[in-house]
């Protein structure tokens, strides 16, 4: 056939197929899977001088997966999170590039709270400290994990001290001293989350941290009201409603995770959501 005839036919066919094709591609379900991550040893062997780029690609894959989860959680869609897959990707990432801060930050921002793998996160942070020996964030995170989650104040002090030395101030140590008291734990979390949010470049991670910060700020409001009540009546209030009824709380603080605040037998402020989106939590 003459090319003068054939070419316009082919171009018209392309234009005709373009719209249904792109519509299909746009609506195609996003594959939210961590998928298979080859062993880091194997990747190190075959990646020649592309190790840092490969580590960055693994991080990108993890963040895209996590971004999809945050979106689902907001829409209240139930999904099972592949935490082992995320761990595997993160540890492969730091084995390829032990200096990659995104991996340490992501482990600390997401996995410590959501998967509660605190000791594993601390191992990762200690591994990172061997390489990023100038970075105060890593000991600061480790110190926080020891104090807040593990209540191991001796180790927390060691890492807060290290963070202070790298930062050139005693601030982390002084804060840590105040946080050692149970009542200071909420303040510790608020201060820590504020630091984390300041450095969050990724929108999904930022949203996740902001939600948690809002939750702790609400807890703090209830705790302050509870302390004021206790100061006057010398006992814990029976419920949050009591604080509301007696005017210690102007309004009921909102739990961004959708739970309701209550005061437990020890007088601690808790939420029925346990500060996690039930649908995202494994």
């Amino acid at each position, binding site marked *: 056939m003459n090319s003068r005839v054939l070419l316009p036919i082919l171009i018209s066919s392309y234009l005709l197929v373009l719209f249904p094709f792109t519509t299909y591609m746009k609506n195609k379900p996003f594959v939210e899977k961590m998928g298979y991550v080859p062993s880091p040893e194997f990747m190190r062997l075959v990646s020649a*001088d592309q190790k840092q780029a490969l580590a960055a690609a693994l991080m990108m894959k993890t963040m895209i997966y996590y971004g999809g989860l945050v979106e689902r959680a907001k829409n209240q869609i139930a999904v099972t999170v592949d935490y082992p897959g995320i761990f595997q990707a993160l540890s492969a990432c730091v084995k390829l590039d032990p200096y990659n801060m*995104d991996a340490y930050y992501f482990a600390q921002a997401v996995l410590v709270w959501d998967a509660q793998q605190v000791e594993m996160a601390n191992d990762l942070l200690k591994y990172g400290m061997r390489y990023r020996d100038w970075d105060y964030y890593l000991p600061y995170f480790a110190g926080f994990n020891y104090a807040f989650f593990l209540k191991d104040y001796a180790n927390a002090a060691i890492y807060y001290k290290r963070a202070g030395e790298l930062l050139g101030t005693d601030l982390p140590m002084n804060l840590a001293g105040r946080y050692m008291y149970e009542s200071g734990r909420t303040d510790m979390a608020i201060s820590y989350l504020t630091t984390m949010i300041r450095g969050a470049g990724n929108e999904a991670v930022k949203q996740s941290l902001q939600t948690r910060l809002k939750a702790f700020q609400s807890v703090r409001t209830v705790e302050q009201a509870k302390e004021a009540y206790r100061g006057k009546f010398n006992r814990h209030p029976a419920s949050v409603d009591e604080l509301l009824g007696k005017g210690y709380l102007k309004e009921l603080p909102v739990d961004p995770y959708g739970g309701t605040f209550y005061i437990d037998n020890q007088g601690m402020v808790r939420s029925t959501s346990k500060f996690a989106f039930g649908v995202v939590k494994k």
Partner: protein
Amino acid sequence: MQKGLIMLQIFFVTFKGILRDRVFRGIMMAGVLFPLIPSISSLSMRQVTELSISLSLSLLSFTLLLLSIFLGGTSLWKDIERRYTFSVLSLPLTRASFLVGKFFGIAAFIVLTTAILGLIASAVIWSSAGVYPSLRPFVWTNIVLAFFFCSLKYILVIAVSFLISAVSTSFFLPIFGTISLFIVGSATQEVYDYLHSSTVLTVSPFVKNIANTLYYLLPNFSAFDFEVNAVYGISPSLSGMIWICVYFVIYTAVMLALSAVIFSRREMQ
């Protein structure tokens, strides 16, 4: 004297031939990708500048890899195929000089490409660092060193591809042989370190001996990798760099000498 002049002419003819083949236009296609790096890097949470340095070096390295494999692996084959070799070798010139002249022509092109892409990469890194200042101040010297050693690495790859081309001037063997040797040569240090670490208990002496032999025999391309130093501003050791340069000169000279011996003795049909 005359031989030297003819070798110099071979050098210039090879260099001009690469330019005439419009290889540079292909490289500029890679150059077009560089301006995309800052926007890709902005997806990183905590190390945007670091990621842009890393991606710039990766792209430079990948472009040089393709160039060294294809130019190094096909150069001798093309000349023999085009019967160009016969007319050149009728001049008062040894085959060894012909081969060395060609090698330096391609090596000079690699240096030129590194310089041009290095400048583009530096502009990209500079713009990323301006928009997203890094917590860790980056060191220009380290970045330039990374470009320099990257260039040396791919000149060594050309020397390896010349050796394979001298053995067999088919199109495929030099290309695939060089790719295989590049991958193995980039991994030998990793394997050697692993086999000599305390965590390994059950490796047969046979495997260990093979790994050791390959480690000493094959070119160690991982030595030329200064990406971590460039990306995270870690000072490289001066003595280490000197050893790498000495290693480069000697290994390249050995490869060229072997290629020259084999090329001189082979039958030309």
